[in-house]
């Protein structure tokens, strides 16, 4: 019942010359879920425009820092190979994985890119207007740079808080900017004095 074209794999491979890894499953109710890992994050824009031409809707974007994979023990006479993701980004616990979840008339196709720590990724806002907020959110959660975002302000987290909140432990009271009611009030008064 999948609404994806049968030759979706060759379309995706043509849009991402560096290589793709595609898996698909269809559940008992006929809903298809596909995962497509791109070898090179720079192929993102071309594959996303393929999704646009298929009338896909960008549902949301997930960013995470996957735990480092444990490397298999080296065979005799071989040197230890550092674990890596498809495409060669190091699986060191710091590399970012960004998942772009697309909805195509009920089916879900997720484009996956790996971005080395401190790296950047192209904004999808030129293709999908709704990428605006999710990209602003991922920029405040992790220290990843989205290139070409038209409005890279903070979305939810106060600009006064240091960047990349999911990369470190932040006490909840600090996160919500109200350690104590008195502390907050004094902060407001101090701001008022410094402004006047």
């Amino acid at each position: 019942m999948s609404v994806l074209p049968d030759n979706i794999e060759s379309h995706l491979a043509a849009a991402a010359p560096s290589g793709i890894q595609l898996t698909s499953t269809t559940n008992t109710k006929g809903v298809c879920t596909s995962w497509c890992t791109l070898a090179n994050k720079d192929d993102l824009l071309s594959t996303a425009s393929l999704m646009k031409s298929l009338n896909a809707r960008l549902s949301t974007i997930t960013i995470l820092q996957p735990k480092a994979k444990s490397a298999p023990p080296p065979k005799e006479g071989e040197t230890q190979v550092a674990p890596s993701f498809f495409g060669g980004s190091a699986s060191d616990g710091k590399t970012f994985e960004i998942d772009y979840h697309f909805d195509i008339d009920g089916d879900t196709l997720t484009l996956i890119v790996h971005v080395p720590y401190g790296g950047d990724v192209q904004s999808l806002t030129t293709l999908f207007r709704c990428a605006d907020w999710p990209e602003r959110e991922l920029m405040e959660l992790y220290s990843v740079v989205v290139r070409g975002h038209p409005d890279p302000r903070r979305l939810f987290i106060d600009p006064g808080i240091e960047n990349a909140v999911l990369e470190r432990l932040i006490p909840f009271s600090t996160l919500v900017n109200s350690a104590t009611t008195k502390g907050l009030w004094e902060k407001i008064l101090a701001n008022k004095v410094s402004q006047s």
Partner: protein
Amino acid sequence: MSNFTIPVGPLNVALEEPMYFKVDVHGETVAHVDIHAGHVHRGIEYLVTKRNVFQNLVLTERICSLCSNSHPQAYAMAIEQIAGLTVPPRGEYMRVIADEIKRVASHLFNVGVLAHLVGFESLFMHVMEVREMMQDVKESVFGNRMDLGAHVIGGVRYNIDDDNLAYLKAQLDRIAPAVAEITELYRTNGSILGRTRGIGVLSHANAIDCSTVGPVARASGINYDVRVKAPYAAYDRLEVPVHVLPDGDVWSRAMVRLAEVATAIDLLRQCLDTLPEGPTSCTSERPPIPVGEAIGKCEAPRGELIYYVRMTDSPKPERVKWRVPSFMNWDALRFMMKDAKISDIAIIVNSIDPCISCTER
């Protein structure tokens, strides 16, 4: 006429949830809207990675009040996919029942608040009174008025006995004519039509551009409902009509919601009439959850809710990400409010049925 920038919110724009709109006005007409979010950001996406799979079922239910049932449902669906669990038929019907009860209450709340914003207080109170019958159902069947606590991984944790079945049917027979009467009022009443017809228009093209979901999208002519496009629970065995209107104004959004209330009542009746016997959950134990990732999608009252879950070898998920329907619909307000009058701002904001605690997590 002069140009001003006026603050709308963060408190009490339409409901008591905080969202701040910086509105540039020319005379009385809105020229530009800037949306500032973040007033109820609680970092729940961080918290879920510090709790195990089963504790998170409780936490996700507390993200939002009006769609509290949809969060654990989509989350459980994702976990069940990873673990390869199949919900038994009775459990699937029970999930639909919980879902549709919440939808009736949620939609009635929103159209009720619309009457309040229009200034039609007696209608507001009447709608809330009708909604109260559904609140009684929740309290009687689930023991709670808001958080139903219906779901477990692998099914549901409540059951409907013969007494509750008869009670539920009797309540539906009381609610259905009241909803029909309310719908007729919204269709014909001059006070309602005067304040909602042609107000806050979102064109079909803009609705697609903003990737709107739920009643907001359907009122702008987008035929999309997760229950039909990506069926889950027992929806593949039920008759689910999708209500679509072409005009995209505040009135259309209210009418889509009212039509969906009638459909929800019909779905509840279909479920109660054909409720299969058997267990409500595939396991009474806490099943082992293997390594994997999955997506769970369901139609919350406000539209498509999507959950992404990644499990590693830890009992705590490595990442859980969810995107609530309101998250997509905020952007559409910029188009709806363009050239609107200041006095219509609250009505327009309410028409997307915004949920801020959901949006900001």
